[in-house]
Protein backbone atom coordinates (compact mmCIF):
# COMPACT_ATOMS: atom_id res chain seq x y z
CA UNK A 1 0.00 0.00 0.00
CA UNK A 2 1.40 3.38 -1.02
CA UNK A 3 0.44 7.04 -0.75
CA UNK A 4 0.60 8.63 -4.18
CA UNK A 5 0.01 12.06 -5.64
CA UNK A 6 -3.41 12.15 -7.33
CA UNK A 7 -1.69 13.53 -10.42
CA UNK A 8 0.05 10.14 -10.76
CA UNK A 9 -3.16 8.12 -10.37
CA UNK A 10 -4.17 6.06 -13.41
CA UNK A 11 -7.35 4.21 -14.38
CA UNK A 12 -7.12 0.59 -13.22
CA UNK A 13 -5.32 1.30 -9.94
CA UNK A 14 -7.02 0.00 -6.80
CA UNK A 15 -7.85 2.26 -3.86
CA UNK A 16 -6.45 0.96 -0.57
CA UNK A 17 -8.17 3.45 1.79
CA UNK A 18 -11.40 5.45 1.73
CA UNK A 19 -11.27 8.92 0.22
CA UNK A 20 -13.04 11.74 2.09
CA UNK A 21 -13.58 15.38 1.15
CA UNK A 22 -12.39 18.15 3.48
CA UNK A 23 -15.97 18.19 4.81
CA UNK A 24 -15.55 14.47 5.72
CA UNK A 25 -17.96 13.30 3.04
CA UNK A 26 -17.09 9.82 1.82
CA UNK A 27 -16.23 9.91 -1.88
CA UNK A 28 -14.85 6.43 -2.54
CA UNK A 29 -14.46 3.21 -0.56
CA UNK A 30 -11.41 0.92 -0.49
CA UNK A 31 -11.04 -1.73 -3.24
CA UNK A 32 -12.59 0.54 -5.84
CA UNK A 33 -10.74 0.48 -9.14
CA UNK A 34 -9.94 3.97 -10.38
CA UNK A 35 -11.49 5.29 -13.58
CA UNK A 36 -10.94 8.52 -15.50
CA UNK A 37 -14.25 9.68 -14.08
CA UNK A 38 -13.57 9.11 -10.37
CA UNK A 39 -10.04 10.55 -10.68
CA UNK A 40 -11.65 13.66 -12.17
CA UNK A 41 -14.21 13.79 -9.34
CA UNK A 42 -11.48 13.53 -6.69
CA UNK A 43 -9.53 16.34 -8.36
CA UNK A 44 -12.63 18.50 -8.46
CA UNK A 45 -13.05 17.96 -4.68
CA UNK A 46 -9.50 19.15 -4.07
CA UNK A 47 -8.03 15.75 -3.13
CA UNK A 48 -4.24 15.74 -3.58
CA UNK A 49 -3.12 12.30 -2.38
CA UNK A 50 -4.66 8.81 -2.25
CA UNK A 51 -3.66 5.40 -0.86
CA UNK A 52 -3.21 2.79 -3.58
CA UNK A 53 -3.04 -0.98 -3.07
CA UNK A 54 -0.71 -3.07 -5.18
CA UNK A 55 -3.63 -4.94 -6.80
CA UNK A 56 -3.08 -3.20 -10.09
CA UNK A 57 0.68 -3.49 -9.67
CA UNK A 58 1.39 -0.01 -10.85
CA UNK A 59 2.11 3.48 -9.62
CA UNK A 60 3.77 1.91 -6.61
CA UNK A 61 6.36 4.13 -5.03
CA UNK A 62 9.36 2.96 -3.08
CA UNK A 63 10.54 0.20 -5.44
CA UNK A 64 13.57 -1.78 -4.38
CA UNK A 65 16.61 -1.99 -6.60
CA UNK A 66 15.63 -5.53 -7.57
CA UNK A 67 12.18 -4.32 -8.61
CA UNK A 68 13.69 -1.55 -10.74
CA UNK A 69 15.98 -4.06 -12.44
CA UNK A 70 13.08 -6.41 -13.04
CA UNK A 71 11.00 -3.63 -14.57
CA UNK A 72 13.88 -2.55 -16.81
CA UNK A 73 14.28 -6.16 -17.97
CA UNK A 74 10.56 -6.49 -18.73
CA UNK A 75 10.52 -3.19 -20.62
CA UNK A 76 13.54 -4.21 -22.73
CA UNK A 77 11.99 -7.57 -23.58
CA UNK A 78 8.66 -6.00 -24.49
CA UNK A 79 10.26 -3.25 -26.60
CA UNK A 80 12.14 -5.93 -28.58
CA UNK A 81 8.97 -7.98 -29.00
CA UNK A 82 6.89 -4.99 -30.10
CA UNK A 83 9.66 -3.36 -32.18
CA UNK A 84 7.98 -3.83 -35.56
CA UNK A 85 4.55 -2.72 -34.39
CA UNK A 86 5.49 0.72 -33.04
CA UNK A 87 4.73 3.59 -33.16
CA UNK A 88 1.03 2.80 -32.94
CA UNK A 89 -0.96 4.26 -30.03
CA UNK A 90 -2.91 1.02 -29.55
CA UNK A 91 0.19 -1.17 -29.49
CA UNK A 92 1.78 1.35 -27.08
CA UNK A 93 -1.23 0.91 -24.79
CA UNK A 94 -1.00 -2.90 -25.00
CA UNK A 95 2.73 -2.67 -24.25
CA UNK A 96 2.14 -0.41 -21.23
CA UNK A 97 -0.51 -2.63 -19.64
CA UNK A 98 1.44 -5.82 -20.46
CA UNK A 99 4.51 -4.36 -18.71
CA UNK A 100 2.51 -3.73 -15.54
CA UNK A 101 0.91 -7.17 -15.61
CA UNK A 102 4.17 -9.02 -16.22
CA UNK A 103 5.86 -7.07 -13.42
CA UNK A 104 3.06 -7.96 -11.03
CA UNK A 105 3.17 -11.64 -12.07
CA UNK A 106 6.94 -11.90 -11.68
CA UNK A 107 6.98 -10.08 -8.32
CA UNK A 108 4.27 -12.42 -7.06
CA UNK A 109 6.34 -15.41 -8.19
CA UNK A 110 9.44 -13.94 -6.58
CA UNK A 111 7.63 -13.40 -3.27
CA UNK A 112 6.25 -16.93 -3.34
CA UNK A 113 9.69 -18.31 -4.12
CA UNK A 114 11.24 -16.20 -1.37
CA UNK A 115 8.64 -17.35 1.14
CA UNK A 116 9.41 -20.98 0.36
CA UNK A 117 13.12 -20.56 1.11
CA UNK A 118 14.16 -21.81 4.58
Amino acid sequence: MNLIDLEKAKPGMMLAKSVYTLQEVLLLKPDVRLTEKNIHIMKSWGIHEIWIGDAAGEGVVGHTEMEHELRAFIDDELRAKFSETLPDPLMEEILRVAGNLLEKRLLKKEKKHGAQKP
Partner: protein
Amino acid sequence: MAPKNLKRIINQIDDLPTLPRTVLKITELVNNPKSSAREISSVITDDQVLTARLLKLVNSSFYGFPQKISTITGAIVLLGFDAIRNLLLTTSVFDMFSSRSRENRMIQESFWDHSLGCAIGAKVIGTYLRYEKVEELFVSGLLHDIGKIVEMLFLPDDFAEVRNVVKIRNILIITAEEEVMGFTHPDVGRLLAEKWNLPLKLVNILEHHHQPEQAGRFIQETSIIHLADILCRAIDLGSGGDRKIPSLNSEAWASLKLKPNVIEPILHEMEREFQDISWVVTGK
Protein backbone atom coordinates in the same frame (compact mmCIF):
# COMPACT_ATOMS: atom_id res chain seq x y z
CA MET B 1 -1.59 -19.45 -51.33
CA ALA B 2 -0.51 -20.77 -54.75
CA PRO B 3 -2.33 -23.94 -55.91
CA LYS B 4 0.95 -25.86 -56.23
CA ASN B 5 1.66 -25.20 -52.56
CA LEU B 6 -1.81 -26.33 -51.62
CA LYS B 7 -1.14 -29.54 -53.52
CA ARG B 8 2.18 -29.86 -51.70
CA ILE B 9 0.50 -29.70 -48.31
CA ILE B 10 -2.04 -32.33 -49.31
CA ASN B 11 0.74 -34.56 -50.66
CA GLN B 12 2.86 -34.13 -47.57
CA ILE B 13 0.09 -34.38 -45.01
CA ASP B 14 -1.70 -37.25 -46.66
CA ASP B 15 -2.66 -38.65 -43.31
CA LEU B 16 -4.39 -35.69 -41.67
CA PRO B 17 -6.03 -36.97 -38.51
CA THR B 18 -9.75 -37.68 -38.51
CA LEU B 19 -12.10 -36.80 -35.69
CA PRO B 20 -13.19 -39.56 -33.28
CA ARG B 21 -16.30 -41.40 -34.43
CA THR B 22 -18.41 -40.09 -31.53
CA VAL B 23 -17.60 -36.46 -32.37
CA LEU B 24 -18.32 -37.07 -36.08
CA LYS B 25 -21.65 -38.68 -35.20
CA ILE B 26 -22.55 -35.78 -32.92
CA THR B 27 -21.56 -33.23 -35.59
CA GLU B 28 -23.86 -35.06 -37.98
CA LEU B 29 -26.74 -35.05 -35.47
CA VAL B 30 -26.21 -31.37 -34.58
CA ASN B 31 -26.35 -30.47 -38.29
CA ASN B 32 -29.67 -32.28 -38.65
CA PRO B 33 -32.58 -30.07 -37.53
CA LYS B 34 -34.69 -33.16 -36.78
CA SER B 35 -32.30 -34.47 -34.09
CA SER B 36 -33.45 -34.49 -30.48
CA ALA B 37 -31.50 -33.86 -27.27
CA ARG B 38 -32.17 -37.48 -26.29
CA GLU B 39 -30.57 -38.82 -29.49
CA ILE B 40 -27.43 -36.74 -28.97
CA SER B 41 -27.33 -37.65 -25.32
CA SER B 42 -27.42 -41.38 -26.07
CA VAL B 43 -24.41 -41.08 -28.43
CA ILE B 44 -22.39 -39.15 -25.82
CA THR B 45 -23.24 -41.42 -22.90
CA ASP B 46 -21.94 -44.44 -24.87
CA ASP B 47 -18.50 -42.91 -24.28
CA GLN B 48 -17.78 -42.75 -20.56
CA VAL B 49 -14.70 -40.55 -20.85
CA LEU B 50 -16.52 -37.97 -22.97
CA THR B 51 -19.48 -38.04 -20.59
CA ALA B 52 -17.30 -37.39 -17.54
CA ARG B 53 -15.35 -34.65 -19.28
CA LEU B 54 -18.44 -32.89 -20.55
CA LEU B 55 -20.03 -32.86 -17.10
CA LYS B 56 -16.78 -31.52 -15.61
CA LEU B 57 -16.72 -28.70 -18.16
CA VAL B 58 -20.35 -27.65 -17.81
CA ASN B 59 -19.96 -27.60 -14.03
CA SER B 60 -16.78 -25.48 -14.19
CA SER B 61 -16.60 -21.79 -13.34
CA PHE B 62 -16.45 -20.99 -17.08
CA TYR B 63 -20.21 -21.50 -17.35
CA GLY B 64 -21.03 -20.52 -13.78
CA PHE B 65 -24.40 -22.29 -13.56
CA PRO B 66 -25.80 -21.93 -10.05
CA GLN B 67 -26.89 -25.54 -9.74
CA LYS B 68 -24.96 -28.74 -10.42
CA ILE B 69 -25.68 -30.36 -13.80
CA SER B 70 -25.60 -34.11 -13.38
CA THR B 71 -26.98 -35.44 -16.68
CA ILE B 72 -25.88 -35.07 -20.29
CA THR B 73 -29.45 -34.35 -21.37
CA GLY B 74 -29.55 -31.53 -18.81
CA ALA B 75 -26.28 -30.14 -20.19
CA ILE B 76 -27.61 -30.26 -23.77
CA VAL B 77 -30.85 -28.51 -22.85
CA LEU B 78 -28.98 -25.77 -20.96
CA LEU B 79 -26.16 -25.16 -23.43
CA GLY B 80 -27.70 -26.02 -26.78
CA PHE B 81 -26.58 -28.39 -29.55
CA ASP B 82 -23.83 -26.21 -31.05
CA ALA B 83 -22.18 -25.54 -27.72
CA ILE B 84 -22.09 -29.25 -26.90
CA ARG B 85 -20.56 -30.07 -30.28
CA ASN B 86 -17.92 -27.37 -29.75
CA LEU B 87 -17.05 -28.61 -26.27
CA LEU B 88 -16.62 -32.17 -27.48
CA LEU B 89 -14.56 -31.01 -30.42
CA THR B 90 -12.24 -29.03 -28.15
CA THR B 91 -11.60 -31.81 -25.68
CA SER B 92 -11.09 -34.37 -28.47
CA VAL B 93 -8.58 -32.20 -30.32
CA PHE B 94 -6.40 -31.97 -27.21
CA ASP B 95 -6.32 -35.76 -26.99
CA MET B 96 -5.76 -36.41 -30.68
CA PHE B 97 -2.60 -34.40 -30.93
CA SER B 98 -0.80 -35.67 -27.85
CA SER B 99 2.82 -36.26 -28.72
CA ARG B 100 5.16 -38.99 -27.53
CA SER B 101 8.38 -37.08 -28.08
CA ARG B 102 9.53 -35.19 -24.99
CA GLU B 103 10.70 -32.15 -26.94
CA ASN B 104 7.50 -31.99 -28.97
CA ARG B 105 5.48 -32.32 -25.78
CA MET B 106 7.15 -29.25 -24.34
CA ILE B 107 6.62 -27.16 -27.49
CA GLN B 108 3.06 -28.45 -27.72
CA GLU B 109 2.30 -27.51 -24.12
CA SER B 110 3.42 -23.95 -24.71
CA PHE B 111 1.34 -23.86 -27.93
CA TRP B 112 -1.71 -25.12 -26.03
CA ASP B 113 -1.19 -22.52 -23.32
CA HIS B 114 -1.03 -19.86 -26.04
CA SER B 115 -4.22 -21.25 -27.60
CA LEU B 116 -5.95 -21.32 -24.25
CA GLY B 117 -4.84 -17.72 -23.61
CA CYS B 118 -6.22 -16.73 -27.01
CA ALA B 119 -9.48 -18.58 -26.29
CA ILE B 120 -9.88 -16.75 -22.98
CA GLY B 121 -9.01 -13.45 -24.64
CA ALA B 122 -11.62 -14.10 -27.33
CA LYS B 123 -14.22 -14.87 -24.69
CA VAL B 124 -13.39 -11.71 -22.71
CA ILE B 125 -13.44 -9.49 -25.82
CA GLY B 126 -16.68 -11.17 -26.95
CA THR B 127 -18.25 -10.44 -23.58
CA TYR B 128 -17.28 -6.75 -23.92
CA LEU B 129 -18.90 -6.69 -27.35
CA ARG B 130 -21.97 -8.56 -26.03
CA TYR B 131 -21.34 -11.19 -28.70
CA GLU B 132 -24.07 -13.78 -28.45
CA LYS B 133 -22.01 -16.99 -28.73
CA VAL B 134 -18.86 -16.39 -26.69
CA GLU B 135 -18.32 -20.13 -26.34
CA GLU B 136 -17.94 -20.28 -30.15
CA LEU B 137 -15.20 -17.64 -29.88
CA PHE B 138 -13.55 -19.67 -27.13
CA VAL B 139 -13.34 -22.75 -29.38
CA SER B 140 -12.05 -20.62 -32.29
CA GLY B 141 -9.28 -19.30 -30.04
CA LEU B 142 -8.36 -22.81 -28.94
CA LEU B 143 -8.11 -24.04 -32.52
CA HIS B 144 -6.70 -20.93 -34.24
CA ASP B 145 -3.13 -22.29 -34.39
CA ILE B 146 -3.96 -25.97 -34.93
CA GLY B 147 -2.00 -25.78 -38.20
CA LYS B 148 1.25 -25.38 -36.21
CA ILE B 149 0.59 -28.61 -34.30
CA VAL B 150 -0.12 -30.45 -37.55
CA GLU B 151 3.11 -29.11 -39.06
CA MET B 152 5.08 -30.15 -36.00
CA LEU B 153 3.71 -33.70 -36.01
CA PHE B 154 3.35 -34.36 -39.75
CA LEU B 155 6.11 -32.22 -41.30
CA PRO B 156 8.79 -32.50 -38.59
CA ASP B 157 11.80 -31.63 -40.79
CA ASP B 158 10.20 -28.55 -42.33
CA PHE B 159 8.92 -27.43 -38.95
CA ALA B 160 12.37 -27.83 -37.35
CA GLU B 161 13.78 -25.63 -40.12
CA VAL B 162 11.03 -23.06 -39.51
CA ARG B 163 11.91 -22.97 -35.80
CA ASN B 164 15.57 -22.62 -36.65
CA VAL B 165 14.94 -19.65 -38.94
CA VAL B 166 12.76 -18.02 -36.25
CA LYS B 167 15.53 -18.49 -33.69
CA ILE B 168 18.35 -17.15 -35.88
CA ARG B 169 16.52 -14.17 -37.40
CA ASN B 170 14.04 -13.39 -34.61
CA ILE B 171 11.08 -13.12 -36.98
CA LEU B 172 7.42 -14.10 -36.76
CA ILE B 173 6.81 -17.83 -37.24
CA ILE B 174 4.30 -17.13 -40.04
CA THR B 175 7.02 -15.29 -42.02
CA ALA B 176 9.42 -18.19 -41.56
CA GLU B 177 6.75 -20.73 -42.60
CA GLU B 178 6.14 -18.83 -45.83
CA GLU B 179 9.87 -18.68 -46.57
CA VAL B 180 10.70 -22.29 -45.68
CA MET B 181 7.57 -24.16 -46.81
CA GLY B 182 5.70 -21.78 -49.09
CA PHE B 183 2.57 -22.13 -46.96
CA THR B 184 1.58 -21.19 -43.41
CA HIS B 185 -0.26 -22.57 -40.39
CA PRO B 186 -3.49 -20.72 -41.34
CA ASP B 187 -3.40 -22.61 -44.69
CA VAL B 188 -2.95 -25.93 -42.90
CA GLY B 189 -5.60 -25.04 -40.33
CA ARG B 190 -8.09 -24.32 -43.09
CA LEU B 191 -7.42 -27.67 -44.77
CA LEU B 192 -7.91 -29.51 -41.51
CA ALA B 193 -11.10 -27.61 -40.67
CA GLU B 194 -12.51 -28.40 -44.12
CA LYS B 195 -11.59 -32.06 -43.77
CA TRP B 196 -13.43 -32.13 -40.46
CA ASN B 197 -16.49 -30.40 -41.92
CA LEU B 198 -16.28 -27.65 -39.33
CA PRO B 199 -18.63 -24.65 -39.72
CA LEU B 200 -17.66 -22.13 -42.42
CA LYS B 201 -17.18 -19.44 -39.78
CA LEU B 202 -14.50 -21.51 -38.02
CA VAL B 203 -12.80 -22.34 -41.34
CA ASN B 204 -12.59 -18.61 -42.10
CA ILE B 205 -11.29 -17.70 -38.64
CA LEU B 206 -8.53 -20.32 -38.83
CA GLU B 207 -7.55 -19.21 -42.33
CA HIS B 208 -7.63 -15.45 -41.84
CA HIS B 209 -6.68 -14.76 -38.22
CA HIS B 210 -3.51 -13.00 -39.44
CA GLN B 211 -5.42 -11.04 -42.13
CA PRO B 212 -8.90 -10.51 -40.70
CA GLU B 213 -9.80 -7.99 -43.39
CA GLN B 214 -9.98 -10.95 -45.80
CA ALA B 215 -12.57 -12.82 -43.73
CA GLY B 216 -15.59 -11.26 -45.48
CA ARG B 217 -18.77 -11.56 -43.44
CA PHE B 218 -16.82 -13.15 -40.57
CA ILE B 219 -14.58 -10.10 -40.10
CA GLN B 220 -15.82 -9.39 -36.56
CA GLU B 221 -15.20 -12.91 -35.22
CA THR B 222 -11.85 -13.17 -37.03
CA SER B 223 -10.82 -9.76 -35.68
CA ILE B 224 -11.65 -10.89 -32.14
CA ILE B 225 -9.28 -13.86 -32.53
CA HIS B 226 -6.66 -11.60 -34.17
CA LEU B 227 -6.76 -9.19 -31.20
CA ALA B 228 -6.87 -12.00 -28.62
CA ASP B 229 -3.80 -13.58 -30.26
CA ILE B 230 -1.87 -10.30 -29.93
CA LEU B 231 -2.99 -9.72 -26.33
CA CYS B 232 -2.03 -13.18 -25.07
CA ARG B 233 1.36 -12.89 -26.78
CA ALA B 234 1.85 -9.51 -25.06
CA ILE B 235 1.36 -11.01 -21.60
CA ASP B 236 3.21 -14.27 -22.37
CA LEU B 237 0.34 -16.72 -21.97
CA GLY B 238 2.12 -19.69 -23.51
CA SER B 239 4.11 -19.22 -26.71
CA GLY B 240 3.12 -18.76 -30.33
CA GLY B 241 6.53 -20.16 -31.36
CA ASP B 242 8.38 -16.86 -31.74
CA ARG B 243 9.45 -13.79 -29.74
CA LYS B 244 7.72 -11.23 -31.91
CA ILE B 245 4.25 -9.79 -31.89
CA PRO B 246 2.14 -9.26 -35.02
CA SER B 247 0.85 -5.75 -35.81
CA LEU B 248 -2.75 -4.98 -34.95
CA ASN B 249 -4.65 -4.76 -38.22
CA SER B 250 -6.35 -1.36 -38.41
CA GLU B 251 -9.43 -2.69 -40.27
CA ALA B 252 -9.79 -5.41 -37.63
CA TRP B 253 -9.67 -2.87 -34.81
CA ALA B 254 -12.16 -0.60 -36.61
CA SER B 255 -14.56 -3.51 -37.10
CA LEU B 256 -14.67 -4.15 -33.34
CA LYS B 257 -15.69 -0.57 -32.47
CA LEU B 258 -13.84 -0.76 -29.15
CA LYS B 259 -12.22 2.14 -27.33
CA PRO B 260 -8.51 1.96 -26.43
CA ASN B 261 -9.28 2.21 -22.70
CA VAL B 262 -10.80 -1.30 -22.73
CA ILE B 263 -7.37 -2.85 -23.37
CA GLU B 264 -6.41 -2.58 -19.69
CA PRO B 265 -9.48 -4.28 -18.15
CA ILE B 266 -9.47 -6.93 -20.91
CA LEU B 267 -5.84 -7.86 -20.21
CA HIS B 268 -6.45 -7.96 -16.44
CA GLU B 269 -9.45 -10.24 -16.94
CA MET B 270 -7.47 -12.52 -19.27
CA GLU B 271 -4.71 -12.87 -16.69
CA ARG B 272 -7.23 -13.76 -13.96
CA GLU B 273 -9.26 -16.23 -16.03
CA PHE B 274 -6.19 -17.98 -17.42
CA GLN B 275 -5.22 -19.11 -13.91
CA ASP B 276 -8.82 -20.14 -13.19
CA ILE B 277 -9.57 -22.45 -16.08
CA SER B 278 -6.34 -23.84 -17.54
CA TRP B 279 -6.72 -27.02 -15.46
CA VAL B 280 -10.26 -27.64 -16.72
CA VAL B 281 -9.25 -27.80 -20.37
CA THR B 282 -5.76 -29.22 -20.26
CA GLY B 283 -6.12 -31.29 -17.09
CA LYS B 284 -2.84 -29.73 -15.79
